[in-house]
Structure formats: C-alpha cells, structure tokens
C-alpha cells in the first residue's frame, strides 16, 4: 500500500500557484506605489508606468483566480465544528512544544480563517483597486477612502501570507508536498488532519 494519499488535485494546485504568482507580481509592482522608499522596485518592470500596467493585469488575474479558489472551497472553509473549537481554544497547539492532538478535518480553523480573510481582502482590494484605477470616474471622497483601504488590506494580506508561508513550509514539515506533488504522507495526514484522513481512506 502506498505511503501517500492525495490532498490536492492537479487543477487545485495549478489554481493555487496562479493565485500565488499573481499575488507576488502584485506585491512587486505595488511596492513602488506603496511608498517612495520602494521606488527601486519599479526598475524590475522598466519604470512606474509599466509597473502600474502589470499591476492592473495581475490584479484582474488575482481577483478572479482568488475568488474562484474561495468558491471552490467555500463549503470546507466556512463551517466550524466542535473539534475546531477545541483547536481554537488551544491555538492549534502552536504556542507550546507539547504534543497536541486535534480531530481536524481537511482544514484546521486557522486555514479556514486564512481562506475567509484572503477572500474578503480579495473582494475589498478588487473593488478599491478598480476605483483607484479610474479615479476620475468616482467622487473624490470615494477614491480617497479606496486608496486608504487598498493599502490597509494589502498590509493585512501580506502579514497573513507570511504566516501562511511559514506554516505551510518550515513550520509544518511535509505540508508543502500537498501543493507541489499533490500527495502527502499518510503519517502527516494522520497527525494534522485525522478526521479528513479517516474520511478519505475508510470505505464509505
């Protein structure tokens, strides 16, 4: 019997990396717009006007791929059960070295929260982005608030992404495989997502 089970299908993985690629393109093209401190990043794209153009293109790609990804996982990430509450009470065991065991389904509450926050941020960044894109077609007050919200939700997103990348790589060894090859080791699944492991391996 194989040591691995499938966690993410090929289409799910490709979608995730489309979202990732467009996110980091947005980050690099947007830094120069965020502050003159990061003006040098415009150089990566051959100047500010090119960076803004690429920011708009990748913004459209990010918006639709991120919203689509959320809709695909909406059912899994928007409901919290009793076991999730135990996980939340103990912060998922991340604040202690002691071994912890939670009966978690496909996603733990932290992952669900991340998905919901990124979906919300995508919506806000998308709407405020379009307004900042066409500032002459909206009332000045709306554009001013949009520019502020755009930076606020960007900051929220990038901080969440830092945590997401940490937990999916060095924070939880073995996790990244799910997003690379699609398969995870069974012992990984038993440790992190026992309820999901049971559901997928036991005959219905």
């Amino acid at each position, binding site marked *: 019997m194989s*040591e691995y089970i499938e966690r993410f299908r090929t289409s799910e993985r490709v979608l995730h990396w489309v979202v990732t690629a467009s996110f980091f393109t947005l980050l690099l093209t947007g830094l*120069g*717009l*965020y*502050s*003159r*401190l990061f*003006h040098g990043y*415009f150089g990566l794209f051959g*100047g*500010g*006007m090119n*960076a*803004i153009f690429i920011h708009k293109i990748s913004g459209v790609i990010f918006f639709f791929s991120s919203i689509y990804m959320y809709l695909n996982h909406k059912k899994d990430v928007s409901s919290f059960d009793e076991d999730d509450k135990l996980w939340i009470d103990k912060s998922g*065991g*991340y*604040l*202690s*070295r002691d*071994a912890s065991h939670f009966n978690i389904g496909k996603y733990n509450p932290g992952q669900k929260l991340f998905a919901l926050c990124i979906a919300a941020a995508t919506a806000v960044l998308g709407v405020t982005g379009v307004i900042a894109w066409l*500032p*002459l077609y909206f009332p*000045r*007050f709306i*554009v*001013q*608030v949009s*520019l*502020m919200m755009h*930076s*606020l939700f*960007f*900051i929220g997103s*990038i*901080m969440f992404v*830092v*945590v997401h990348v*940490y937990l999916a790589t*060095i*924070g*939880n*060894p*073995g996790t990244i495989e799910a997003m690379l090859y699609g398969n995870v*080791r069974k*012992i*990984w699944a038993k*440790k*992190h997502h026992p309820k999901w492991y049971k559901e997928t391996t036991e005959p219905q």
Partner: protein
Amino acid sequence: MADTVNQATRKGFLVDTSRCIGCRSCQVACKQWNKLEADKTANKGTFENPRDLTPALYNRIKFIEKETDGAISWQFFNERCMHCGDAGCMKVCPSPGALSRTSDGIVVFNKDKCISCKYCVSACPFNIPRYGADDKVSKCHLCTDRINGGMTPACAKACPTETLKYGRRSELIAKATAAKKTLYGVDDLMGLGVVYALEGPPEQYGLPARPSIPLSIFLWKDVIKPLGILGFWSSIGAMLLHYVTIGPKKVDDDLDSREDGHE
C-alpha cells in the same frame, strides 16, 4: 525626501479679491505663455467661462453670482494651485521628481516623470490637478520658467488691477496685514503659496474654512504606510521567533523516524 519649504525666502501670490474686475486677463495670459489650447465650452447662462479648471487651464476666474431682488452681484475668485507648504500632491506622488518644490517654494510638475497614477488628484485639498489626453498631471506652476528668468508670472503681469501680486510671500502678507485685510491661507497647510484677501467667509468662495490634507490620505500615508512596514517585518520576526522557540511540528516526532528518500 521630506517636503520642506523655506518660509523666509518663499515666493507666492497675494490675491486681493476686492480688486478683481473679472476681466480674465490672467486666464488668457497663462494660456498664451504656457501655450495651452483653447477649451470648447458651452453657455450655461453665466459669464463664468470655463466653469472648471481643465488640463489646458491652469488658472481661472470663478464667478460667485448672487441674485438679490432681481439684481445680480458678483464676486471674483482666482482659482489655481495654492502651492501648499504641506502639499498633499507631493505627499502621495510615488514618482520622485514628477512633483517637486523649487527653491522659491513653488510646487512644479514634470510630465516626463509622471507615471499617471493620479494620486495627486485625490490628495489635493483644493481639487486642482487635472489630467488630459496625455494622461499626465497638469496644474499652475507659477510660471517657474518666467521666475527663473527674473520675470513675473504671466497672470500677475497681465493683471490690470493688481489683484494678483507676486513677490516674497512674507512681505506680501505683512503688507496685506498692515492694510487690515482678512487673509486666507497664511498658516493652513504650512501656509499656502497663494494667500487670499477675501471679502467674505471662505465657504462663500467654495473654499474649505480650514483646509487640510484629506483624512483618508493622511491615514494612508502617515499612519498605515509606516505601521504597515513595521507590521510586515514584525510578522517575519514573529515566525522566525516561533521557529527557534517553540519550533516546527514534525510529523516524525510521534513515530519511528523512517528514511523515505523522496527528497
């Protein structure tokens, strides 16, 4: 790249609205000197023309028309870039050199450096910058090219009533104060480069009583931006700290470690 203005040597305008006769010589002289195209306008039943600043109109006379018992009374107001001491446009501009301050304290623009983000349009307390077909910023630059050549800005030169007086800002203010004028823009936004002697409350001229950088723009650039950079590095620091204190959740902790050879 802090925007600082030397209050002692700063140049500017004193606009005494009580002297203005609404002849619009300033509009015409500006267009002529700056080689700006005429804008096609429509008659909307007022002598005010054009009704708003455009990419080809850096200053204009705003007509405040009041009708009392069938008689019309006019007030005239020269609308233009105020060359704020604390300029919202410069605060938000992401492209160094697109908007800059001269040694005379004048806020000028450079279309070659402008990247068409239009942040200045949103950040201006007076809604002055305009974008035209070239998608680049345009606004009054106080005829810096004339000033550098030792001349008076075109509008002030053409003004037949000395409504527009150009000179050292502190001297203009001192003279107007001695003449007991009520001044607008002396201290707001680190002092406006264009100070007005108004004949009524600022609101009557469509001016904010206390002009300031729009609140969301202030929060964006002075609060969220610095705190955001701090927040980003804090999250990186927190993850590293977590790794070296509590550490990763290793799968093999619970089981006999086996060599898988898949990496």
